[in-house]
């Protein structure tokens, strides 16, 4: 697959704060790439460097195999943090203005308004828009020059569940059109639902990157309880176990790949133990995310 973005040891320091530290990353064409990380982990700073508003301290990155030039950003649509528009102009007028800046044809305006479902509000002033509509107008503006890549920084920030679902649907729709999307978000559920790949940042360090479909692969995680000594020693002797830890009133047991919960149940039964609590957990991105963060070295 063709490489859209390649980041090499990219670093940004703000004084003594290491906002982004030696990041190396590749984004291929057609990926929907999620960037996860707690507040202040460097997501916006990274995207800012990619879009030429933050100067890097060291390292490099290239778009479409070329070193960054101002012109290249015209092939990239980006919404970083809050949408920025003129409040007294209508949505349509704002887009006309932006089309001029991006040197794209105003003929695209009806199309992008249609995509974000704002056509019927295009002649209202921007300041009368709801937050969700503002976000959607920003996405429309980013789509104006039919970019190859779309960069979104927390596009659902501050929206209600309905608004979030709408934006999510919109992102999926845009992704299906074959666009590459880079999405920074706190909503793990959202990333799991719309992204194909993701990376996790922690204090400026990229601590994980991989495909979303790998989440939940590996051994099953099972809750077994209630906790007692007999159960404890029986579990310890079970051949198919990877790890085990206490959690509230039960043990959290990770099994080897291929071992099913029935196998464990049968084993315990043979040992004369009837576990009253035995639930297989589906591993979500959220769990994986928290695991990655807690396992990552703090430096």
């Amino acid at each position, binding site marked *: 697959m063709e490489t859209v973005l390649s980041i090499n040891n990219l670093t940004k320091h703000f004084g003594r704060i290491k906002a982004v530290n030696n990041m190396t990353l590749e984004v291929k064409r057609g990926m929907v790439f999620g960037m996860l990380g707690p507040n202040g982990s460097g997501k916006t700073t990274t995207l*800012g460097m990619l*879009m*030429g*508003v*933050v*100067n890097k301290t060291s390292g490099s990155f290239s778009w479409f195999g070329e070193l960054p030039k*101002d*012109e*290249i*950003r*015209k092939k*990239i649509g*980006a919404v*970083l943090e*809050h949408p*920025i528009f003129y409040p007294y102009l209508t949505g349509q007028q704002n887009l006309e203005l*932006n089309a001029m*800046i*991006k*040197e794209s044809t105003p003929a695209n305006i009806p199309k992008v308004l249609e995509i974000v479902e704002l056509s019927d509000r295009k002649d209202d002033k921007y300041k009368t828009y709801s937050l969700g509509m503002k976000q959607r107008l920003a996405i429309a503006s980013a789509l104006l020059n039919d970019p190859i890549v779309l960069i979104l920084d927390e596009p659902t920030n501050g929206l209600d569940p309905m608004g979030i679902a709408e934006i999510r649907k919109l992102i999926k729709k845009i992704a299906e059109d074959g666009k590459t999307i880079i999405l920074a978000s706190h909503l793990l559920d959202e990333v799991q639902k719309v992204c194909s790949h993701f990376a996790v940042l922690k204090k400026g360090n990229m601590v994980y990157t991989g495909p979303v479909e790998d989440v939940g692969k590996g051994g099953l995680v099972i809750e077994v309880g209630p906790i007692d000594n007999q159960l404890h020693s029986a579990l310890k002797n079970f051949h198919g176990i990877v790890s085990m830890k206490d959690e509230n009133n039960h043990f959290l047991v990770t099994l080897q790949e291929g071992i099913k919960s029935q196998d464990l149940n049968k084993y315990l039964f043979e040992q004369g133990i009837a576990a009253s609590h035995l639930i297989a957990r589906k591993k979500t991105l959220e769990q994986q995310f928290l695991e990655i963060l807690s396992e990552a070295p703090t430096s």
Partner: protein
Amino acid sequence: MLGVLVVISITNEYSYRTLRQNVIDGVSRLDFLISKITTNLGLSIVSALFIFVIGLVTGLIYTPELDWKYVFQSMPFVPAYGLQIFTYLSFALMLGVIIQRSGLTILLLLFASTIELIIKLNLPDSLEVIKPYFPMDAIDNLVPNPFLKYVFQEIQDYVSLASVAIALVWMFLFNFFSYRRLKAADI
């Protein structure tokens, strides 16, 4: 007055983050600065033409007989005045680019001459010679204040090439500093 306008126009680009959005949309920082400098240039030319027309009209009204010789005699003052305005606006733009906040920038702009005066007064005598090279002085010296004419009954009625050269250097430096600063800034 125009200086304040320029300051507001540049600092608003920072506070409303329109500069940031423009850069994200693919405008280069240099292009952005050039558009601001071009606006300054336009304002300066318009001001100079305005002064020229006013001068012409008052001249026509108050001179007993029309003689084009006199009209053209004071011609050099028009471009000099334009350069004066442009250098001053370049200075205002630079302050705005560096400080990014309108209030503080306007204050500094308004008090720039006072600040310069204070620095000059505290200058050791040995550095007396550099006094005319200070930026605000350099700008003022281009077209000396005509009111002095009435006080001293005489006035420098020509544009000195040296003062033009000094102002040009400052004008260049101001815009260069704006460029340096804008290029290095995180916006």
